């Protein structure tokens, strides 16, 4: 597979969500069950595509995939989470808003599994759909064991 290639429909991607993008209750604890802020699926002002992590980059092992992501970052909060989506679901469920979305492999120096969602329109309804209907499987960082390298 070459850089810039579309990820297979049956594969999965993860979006990293820090605690500040989880709704917290009046005691400052993340609301249970966890509710990501839809804006966690919006582009930052200087971004052209949404960063995600390709789960099946090195086999079909979620723990290994998250371990690889951890190695690419200086710090990951214990209460942060990963929101998981299937590539096909992302294409299908976003199609009423846009059919232009592409999920492509875009390895970086620090993360060989780095991928991006391209052609995200400036439509506030898309981030809500991404949060509520597509990236619905939420994995707590604290629940994924640390593998020895």
């Amino acid at each position, binding site marked *: 597979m070459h850089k810039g290639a579309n990820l297979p429909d049956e594969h999965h991607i993860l979006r990293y969500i*820090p605690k500040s993008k989880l709704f917290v209750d009046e*005691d400052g604890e993340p609301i249970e069950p966890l509710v990501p802020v839809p*804006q966690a699926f919006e582009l930052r002002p200087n971004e052209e595509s949404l960063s995600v992590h390709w789960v099946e980059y090195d086999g079909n092992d979620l723990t290994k995939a998250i371990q690889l992501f951890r190695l690419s970052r200086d710090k990951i909060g214990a209460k942060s989470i990963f929101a998981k989506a299937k590539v096909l679901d992302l294409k299908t469920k976003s199609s009423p808003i846009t059919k232009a979305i592409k999920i492509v492999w875009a390895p970086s120096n620090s993360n060989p599994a780095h991928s991006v969602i391209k052609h995200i329109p400036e439509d506030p309804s898309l981030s809500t759909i991404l949060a*509520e209907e597509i990236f619905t499987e939420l994995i707590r960082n604290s629940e994924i064991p640390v593998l020895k390298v």
Partner: protein
Amino acid sequence: MVHNKSRLEYKAQAIKNFADSFSKAPDTNINRQGLFSSQTQIFQDQITKLRNPTPPSLTSSTKEVPETLFDATAEVKILTSTVAMHLEEGIKKKLFSQIDSLHDFDEWDPEDKPLQKASYKSFLRTFLYLRPAKHPGLGLSHTGNIVAVWMTGSNKLTAEFIANDHVKWVISTQNEDGELERVFGNTKIGRFIDSVQPYSPELFFK
């Protein structure tokens, strides 16, 4: 009267000249090293700093993340305290717990912006007007806007508060067939309640 005024003006000019001599001093080593004692030089440097403070735009860019978070937290807490007398009992404590949690340094993503005062101001104004019986969940956007959520069952009202009294809102509800229906809006906070009125906002706030 005229005479008194001119004397005052004379005094003011004398003080100004004296102060100017301090501000010119850093460029003249003779003055610094030859004429003033070391104690006076320290005093002179302090005056110079006061006369030419570093612009906040320069200091903020060099701030470390914990300092930035601390400053942002302090700023919005002070803002909350100025209106605390208008808040129901215990609300200030709840808001402070949420702000502290969102700015938790151990969990912070350095690519994000902390809570922006202008966004929080829009939120606080809406909150004071609404006085919701149900306290909202709070989160942040990448750009530091505060996002509030009120949930009841599978229905959800989400509102992102933006600077200058703007709010972007979404109501997600489940219809009788179990399908999700959504309504979006973008308005000034003064029109927020009117905008969501057709969708039974009392279900969320009470």
